[in-house]
């Protein structure tokens, strides 16, 4: 995924993985973040730049990354949004009979 494509439409689950890791670790450097999210460093940086522009994450003078309040809210909204849509699904009790 190149940076232009990323800026237009990021993978939601990658964003969610980064935010979830940041919620868990609080403050972490980019290399450690790439490791715990199982993303390549280059990919993480691209996503980080995009999320930083959106105001979801910030980096301090020591190079540690942390989640902003807005980032945490976006994550919760995403959970609620998915739950709203997935929660509407009604699954039939299926059992292919022979």
């Amino acid at each position, binding site marked *: 995924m190149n940076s232009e494509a990323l800026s237009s439409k990021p993978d939601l689950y990658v964003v969610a993985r980064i935010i979830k890791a940041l919620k868990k670790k609080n403050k972490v450097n980019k290399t450690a973040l790439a490791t715990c999210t199982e993303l390549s460093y280059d990919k993480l940086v691209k996503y980080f730049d995009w999320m930083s522009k959106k105001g979801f994450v910030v980096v301090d003078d020591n190079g540690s990354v942390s989640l902003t309040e807005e980032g945490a809210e976006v994550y919760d909204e995403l959970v609620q949004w998915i739950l709203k*849509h997935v929660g509407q699904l009604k*699954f039939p009790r299926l059992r*292919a009979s022979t």
Partner: protein
Amino acid sequence: MTEENVVSKVAELMETLDEIKKYNVLEKYLKKFTIIVISSIAICIAVNLTISFFGLLSAFNEFERFFLNFPIVLIPSVGVLVGILFVRSKMKEVKTGEWKKELSKGFPSALKLLSELDWDNSFDVVSSGRLGYAMYSLVKGAAYGFIFFFIIGFVLNLITYLVLHRIGALGYASFHFSFLSIIVYLRYDLSKRFNEIRAIDKLQCELRRLSDELRSAEL
């Protein structure tokens, strides 16, 4: 309303999709099932004709001949059993639960599974396979009808033999009874199958809508 709710709902969805894969197996192996069942019925008829043609049981009287002839019903019975076991074994080969490891990572993985699912492919096979699912029931029903015909005939003749010391006293009663049994069986089985297909169709519509929502979603 938590992340766990999303994960459990997605797990439910994935389990349903795993089950749908099994419906595709029925469609895929319908021809082989039909060949096994029809062959067993053909062998049964051939054995019966051979016995009659060569008079293999001519040394016995009418009653003995009738009861000695009865065990050939085992041929189609075994055929149906082999056919069903064959389809079941193919169903067991369907890989299920491959998503469990991924989903154990929590909400982001649930999101990943939702985004990467090939909805159309999963459901299109079912859509094209609905006729096969119903046909499977019809083939099985026809075979059961054939077996019922023998069994009901045996029971009725046994009764008339014990009561009237005659066989064949009830004419075509075994045919009518077996036909009636199959109508009842098919009515139950086909309506159950069509209800399942309708439920799958409904789920397919809902998943298409969810898929569109996910594709158009932006942060």
